[in-house]
């Protein structure tokens, strides 16, 4: 009789069917690892595509610490600081997660509950920070102009970038007003029009002799964007087609549009992972409170969701390096 039994009887009734464990690991944990492997390949596909595009435009790619310079509630330029804080938040919430797993191994229910709770809070704070970062990026800081060839020209004063609002003073003369559903043709609205017209910007450039144009081109010796002389600036401004304020999928005041596309896509996909991680964490958190794992006799579910949470942190480590540092 024994020879005909495929699954040991005492294991029957368990959701994973019991039976021999390959790699001495439970079915659920093993599959979580293989999911993480496949998800890691997805993310590396995105980051490698970012790398390709960046290598393609290696002489004119936006310089990240000129793009992400803001910190909430503080004025001034602080490159890297904010994203470093976000990284710390995520690493810290990874630590509380692993402490929850550790407490689970010792069957300490209240400790698991508290560590899970802190982890969830950390995740929510991270997503909120990401939303603030997006908002700042979308609204833009300085404003720029774009030529018919798609090149972005920024304005500098004494070598420091200056906002359009700081030197364009004359009133708008083209009479352009925002189309809304109320006053637009055929009740169609349009995207937000820039605060300044091209003519206004050109007039202001000609009127202020201390303003210079900065091109996207990176000086390979200095690794900085080249600043054009007044004459070169006037010549390049002749080709200007429109004013760009902030960043979206069509235009980007910081430079290459593909930079903003990759930013939205990669950090967005990561943010989506964080959000789903928070939701799964919350579900497990309530299960812990209800004592489901106490009854089951092990906290392996906490360990599995912990793997996913650490993976989200792992991805951020790479996004941080390849988007903000390198």
């Amino acid at each position, binding site marked *: 009789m024994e020879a005909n039994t495929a699954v040991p009887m005492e294991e029957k009734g368990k959701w994973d069917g019991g039976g021999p464990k390959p790699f001495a690991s439970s079915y659920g944990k093993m599959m979580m690892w293989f999911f993480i492997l496949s998800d890691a390949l997805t993310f590396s596909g995105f980051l490698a595509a970012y*790398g*390709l595009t960046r290598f393609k435009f*290696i002489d004119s790619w936006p310089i990240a610490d000129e793009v992400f310079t803001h910190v909430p509630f503080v004025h001034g330029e602080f490159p890297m600081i904010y994203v*470093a804080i976000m990284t*710390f938040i995520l690493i810290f919430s990874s630590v509380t997660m692993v402490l929850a*797993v550790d407490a689970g191994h*010792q069957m300490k229910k209240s400790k698991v509950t508290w560590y899970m709770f802190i982890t969830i809070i950390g995740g929510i704070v991270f997503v909120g920070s990401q939303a603030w970062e997006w908002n700042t990026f979308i609204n833009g800081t300085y404003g720029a102009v774009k030529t018919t060839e798609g090149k972005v020209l920024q304005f500098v004063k004494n070598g420091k970038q200056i906002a359009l609002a700081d030197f364009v003073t004359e009133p708008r003369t083209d009479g352009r007003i925002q189309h809304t559903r109320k006053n637009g043709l055929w009740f169609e609205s349009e995207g937000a029009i820039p605060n300044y017209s091209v003519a206004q910007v050109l007039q202001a450039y000609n009127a202020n002799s201390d303003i210079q144009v900065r091109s996207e081109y990176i000086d390979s010796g200095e*690794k900085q964007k080249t600043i054009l002389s007044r004459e070169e600036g006037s010549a390049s401004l002749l080709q200007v087609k429109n004013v760009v304020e902030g960043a979206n999928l069509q235009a980007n005041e910081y430079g290459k549009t593909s930079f903003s596309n990759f930013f939205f896509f990669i950090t967005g996909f990561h943010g989506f992972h964080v959000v789903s991680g928070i939701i799964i964490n919350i579900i497990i958190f309530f299960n812990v409170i209800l004592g489901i794992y106490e009854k089951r006799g092990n906290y392996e579910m906490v360990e599995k969701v912990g793997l996913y949470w650490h993976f989200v942190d792992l991805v951020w480590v790479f996004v941080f390096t390849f988007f903000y*540092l390198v």
Partner: protein
Amino acid sequence: MAQAHVSNTKRIWIVFGILSVITLVEVYLGIIKPDALHLSGPGTSWLNWIFIILTLGKAYGIAWVFMHLEGENKWFRRAIVWSGVFLVSYLVTLLLIEGGYISDILSPLVRW
């Protein structure tokens, strides 16, 4: 789950400390960008190599200690790590070579 019932709390905090220090070093270097490291180096700048190596160090800390890969069955660990490392380095190598090639062909056509 070899040390299933032993508490590793102290070790977890040590790893957290190491990860934090690495992040601080990265941020510090990213802000000051010393010219000696930033403007020269093989392939890319020395600074970029430092960032990449420190990042791989952080990834190792997270995967081995936080995700507890160190305690898994040896061949289970290899099935995950070797597959990922091989496929990612293959993809990255091909795409970066291709990106460099496109740049070589394209950039002479752009007038700045």
